């Protein structure tokens, strides 16, 4: 579209009469021609669409690419050992559970905290149940659910500077660089899956 405007190609648009009258009025108010007003409106609209598209492409695909890159980097550095290095496999089995953990923590604490322990989560059990029923399904045991996710992310945790400290019946997550998880908010959760399908 942008190139056709630059090359001054002729584009014929059929506008409904009332929209044409509105644009005509707008053009007279602005002191510009009707054609220019239509071009400017289209450009503005395209700019807005591009901004929105960029934001959602970050959320839906680029964030996963970046996470995959981090995992591969850690594999090369020898911090992480994985048998399968297939992107789809890593995203599905490791990055998405990490996204679920990030979502739960952001919903609970407002942002990703530097440290989270089981005791701390148990003290916020009511909120935790609400969050998990929203992002997964109802009736799950929140602590078991989180433990399950932690178990899944264990192999790739060093790639995201996460330290998992486990002792008898207790666990603690220490995030070295919380900013690495910021863009994983929503990844692997039910609302986002449904949004993509529709």
């Amino acid at each position, binding site marked *: 579209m942008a190139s056709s405007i630059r090359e001054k190609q002729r584009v014929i648009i059929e506008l409904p009469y009332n929209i044409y009258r509105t644009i005509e009025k707008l053009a007279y108010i602005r002191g510009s021609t009707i054609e220019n007003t239509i071009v400017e409106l289209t450009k503005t609209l395209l700019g807005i669409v591009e901004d929105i598209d960029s*934001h959602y492409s970050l959320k839906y695909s680029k964030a996963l690419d*970046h996470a995959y890159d981090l995992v591969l*980097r850690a594999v090369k550095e020898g911090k992480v050992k994985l048998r399968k290095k297939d992107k789809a496999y890593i995203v599905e089995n490791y990055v998405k559970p990490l996204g679920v953990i990030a979502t739960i923590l952001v919903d609970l*604490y407002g*942002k990703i905290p530097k*440290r989270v322990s089981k005791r701390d989560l148990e003290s916020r059990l009511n909120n935790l149940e609400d969050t998990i029923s929203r992002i997964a399904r109802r009736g799950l045991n929140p602590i078991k659910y989180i433990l399950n996710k932690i178990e899944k992310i264990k192999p790739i945790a060093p790639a995201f500077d996460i330290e998992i400290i486990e002792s008898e019946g207790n666990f603690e997550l220490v995030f070295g*660089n919380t900013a*690495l*998880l910021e*863009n994983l908010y929503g990844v692997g959760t039910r609302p986002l899956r449904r949004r993509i399908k529709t």
Partner: protein
Amino acid sequence: MSSPTFTGIIAFKGGVGKTVLSASLGIGLSYMLKRRVLLVDLDPQANLSEVFLTETTLSAVIKKAFETDRVFSFDLIIRPAENPIIYEIPGIPGLYLLPSHHKFMREAAYGINVPMDRAVSFRGILGRLTKELELDHVIIDFPPQMYQYVITIAAASADYIVTPVAKGAFSIPSVGYLIETYYDVAKVIRREPSVFLGAILTRYDEGNSKLIKLSRERVKETVSKSFKNVNLSPPPVDPVFDTVLYYNPLLTKIRGQLIGFTPYIVKHILGKYTSDVSRRLQDRLKANIASLVREFEERLNWLAALEKSRES
């Protein structure tokens, strides 16, 4: 230091030394303490970019950005899926700049609205950069608070905030306004707002200890009063840095170099000018910056240890 820190340099008033402070911290941390630092220029007026980019290097950076399809600092907030352009500052290894562009001046004039999720995405991008460039510090230079998006981005992206206080009648009250407006909004949009690391007195004369002492006491009073006004407990650290970033003629000429590749201030830090006057000023500046960054890191370490002990 194991985990990277994100520090925002923020002030209500313009012309108090945000850019000079950001540049000094960046240079001090990377050159003197051998840390890896990214300076982010979020000011549409591109002052920090002007410090480190000459006309020659700016045109090269713009050309490279166009050719490699990379964007400038503020583009990342509007279009977060893009890749940023990172400029490695010549002469100081480990010091990087994410520059601003003069085109943002026009956009800022029409008003930029930054929703919270975009600001959080920006922090995510900075997080990725810390990993890619193996950074220890990210220092974000904000514009004065007349731009509305400052609080949102600072609240989302900075773990700590630092404010410069220049010598002058309006500077000390402006710290009070900053804390009140910033924390009033930040505590709502981010449940745990950034920690106030302290105010740094700037542009005071080195021999004027009486005025410095008086100003320090006034800033302390203002800070504690402002925190009380927004119903928050004051920060666990002394609200004013012991180190003062003194007036130095070299810092007043920090911006606006037109030709060459190495920035003016970097040339002085590396000791390229060898006249007696330059040497004296350079030594003073280096000693000043060294004590500033030492205190800066001490405060960060102390706060990190405090947080750790509180959590455990």
